[in-house]
C-alpha cells in the first residue's frame, strides 16, 4: 500500500478519534461491504466500508444482557445502565425503542418493523433524512478517502454523527496564518542560530 494511503488512513483514524472522543456510540460490523444498487458511481463495486471498532466488547452482543432482562417499553429515564447516554435526537417524539429493536437488541428496527443489522444503520437514518442519504450515496455528503478513480472508503453515518446526540460538537481551530507584518527577517536570523536543515 503506498505510503500516502497509509498516512491517509492514519490521519482519518486520528480525526475520527478526535471527533468521537466525547461521543461514544455503538456500531457493530462484521461484514464490511456496502451494496448500493442505486449508486450510479462507476466505482460502486469497489466501495468499501471502513471497518469500525465496536464501541467496546462490553456492549455487543447486546442480547447477552437483554435476553434476560424483561422488556419494559415504558418511556423513562434510564438509571441502572446506559445512563451515560445523552439522548437528544428528536427526544420529544422518540426514545430508545424507536430505533433499537424491542425484542432483540442485537438489531435495529425500521419504522415499518423490518429488522436491520448495525452495519446497515444508514438505512435507519435514511428513513427520516432522505435528502442526506441520497447525497451520501452519491458521495456528496460525508467523507470519502482512498482513490478518486478507484477504491474508496466510505463512512457510515454513525462514524461522524452520534445517533443519540447528533449535533456536532465544536472543534478547536488550528492556528491562524501569520500576519505579513509578523514575517520578518529577524525570525530568519533566529532560526539560523538553531540547528535547522534549511539550506
Amino acid at each position, binding site marked *: 500500500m503506498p505510503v500516502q494511503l497509509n498516512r491517509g488512513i492514519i490521519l482519518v483514524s486520528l480525526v475520527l478519534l478526535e471527533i468521537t472522543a466525547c461521543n461514544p456510540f455503538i456500531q457493530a460490523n462484521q461484514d464490511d461491504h456496502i451494496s448500493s444498487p442505486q449508486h450510479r458511481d462507476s466505482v460502486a463495486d469497489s466501495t468499501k466500508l471502513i471497518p469500525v471498532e465496536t464501541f467496546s466488547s462490553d456492549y455487543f452482543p447486546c442480547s447477552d444482557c437483554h435476553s434476560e432482562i424483561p422488556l419494559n417499553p415504558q418511556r423513562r429515564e434510564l438509571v441502572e445502565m446506559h445512563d451515560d447516554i445523552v439522548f437528544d435526537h428528536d427526544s420529544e417524539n422518540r426514545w430508545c425503542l424507536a430505533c433499537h429493536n424491542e425484542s432483540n437488541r442485537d438489531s435495529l428496527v425500521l419504522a415499518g418493523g423490518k429488522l436491520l443489522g448495525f452495519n446497515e444503520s444508514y438505512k435507519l437514518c435514511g428513513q427520516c433524512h432522505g435528502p442526506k442519504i441520497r447525497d451520501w450515496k452519491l458521495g456528496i455528503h460525508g467523507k470519502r478517502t482512498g482513490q478518486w478513480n478507484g477504491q474508496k472508503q466510505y463512512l457510515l453515518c454513525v462514524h461522524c454523527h452520534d445517533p443519540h446526540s447528533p449535533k456536532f460538537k465544536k472543534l478547536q481551530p488550528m492556528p491562524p496564518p501569520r*500576519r*505579513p*507584518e509578523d*514575517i*520578518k*527577517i529577524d525570525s*530568519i536570523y533566529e532560526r539560523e542560530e538553531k540547528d535547522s536543515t534549511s539550506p
Partner: protein
Amino acid sequence: MNMHLKEFIIGSIKLLFQGSKAYWAWVSTLLILIAIGIVSYYGQAANGLITTSMRDQVSWGFYIGNFTFMVGIAAAAIMLVIPAYIYNWKPIKEIVILGELLAISAIVMCLLFILVDMGHPERFWHMIPGIGKLRLGQSILAWDSLALTFYLILNFIIVSHILFRAFRIKDYSRKYVIPLILLSVPAGIAIHTITAFLYNGIAARPFWNSAILAPKFLASAFCSGPAIMIILFQVLRKTTKLQIENRAIWTLAELMAYTMFFNLFLTGAEIFKEVYSNTEHRVFTEYLYFGIEGHNKIVPFGWLAIIFDVIAFVLFLVPKTRKNFITLNIGAVLIYLGVYIEKGIGLIIPGFTPDVLGEIYEYFPSTTEILVTVGIFSTGFLIYTLMLKVAVPIILGEFNYKKAQ
C-alpha cells in the same frame, strides 16, 4: 570611422578624469551612495526578498514603482525630439541629445530596478528570445522587456552616431538619423504604453484595470521627464559654456503645463468614476486618499501628489511664474515629486490594498528597499554625469579629433 574611434574612446576616458572640485565631490558622493546600495543589495541577495517589506499580499512595491516612474522619464525624452529634429527647431536642437542621454540613463535604471526586484536575477537570461523562452504570445512583461531594450539600443545608436560625427567635425547623417528619430517617437510612446498595459491588463486589481491608465501614464511622463531637463539646463548653463536659450526652457515648461492639465483631468475622471459608481472597487481609491479602518499610512502621499501637481500646473501655466526662474524651479521640483509619488506609492500600493481576498496589509518601503533605490538612482545620475562629461564638450566643439591629438 574607425580611425578616430580609438582617439574618441581614449579622449573620453581622459575627460572623465578631468574636472572641477564640484565635479569630483558630486562623483564621489554618488560612488559612496552606490556602494551603500550595493551593500544593502547584498543583504537582500543573501537573505532573500524578505528584507523588503513586500509580502504575498503586496507582492510589488517600491522597486516596481520606481521602475514605472523611470520608464516615464525615459519616454519623455521624445518630447524634446519632436520639435527639435522634425521641425528643426534651433533653440531645442542641440539640447535634445541631453534628453536622449537622460533616456539612456533612465532605461539603465529601469533595468536595475527590475533586476533587484526579481527573486532570481541571474535567471534573466530566460527572457532572451532563442536562448530562453520569451512568451511573446500573451505576456505584456515579455513585450515590455523587448520594447525597453529596443528603445535603449535605438537611443544609444542615435546619440553615439551624432556625437561621434561631431567628434569628427562632421554633421550627422540626416539619412540615417531622421528615420531612427522618427522611429524613436512611437518607440518612446510604446515603452510607456506597454508598461501601462502591464497594470491595465490585470483584471484581478480593479484599481489598475482602467482604460485611462495608458493615457495617464503618458501624460504624467511627459510632464515629469522634462522637469529634470529644465533644472539640468540651468546647471549646464552655469557650469559649462553651453548656451541654452530661455525660450527653450520656457517652451518646455509650457508643454509640461498642458500635459499636467491632461494628467489632472484623467485623475479627476478616475475619481469621479469611483465616487459616482460607488461600487466596492472604490475601496482602493479610498485607501489612497482617506485610509480604511484606521489604515492610513499613504494618505499624506496621496494628497501631496495632488497638491504638488496642482501648484506646479499653475506655476507653469501662468507666464509670469513660468518665466521667473525661482518659481519655475520650484514648479519643476514639485512636478517631479508629484508624479514620482503618483506613479510609485500612489499606483502600486493602492492596487494591492486591500488584497484580492479583502485583507489589508499596509506596505511601506523597508530600509533595504530605500537604500538600494538610492544606490540605483545614484547609478543613474553617475551614468548621466559621465555621459554628459563627454557629450557637452563635443556639442561645444571643445572635444573633437583635432583637439584630441
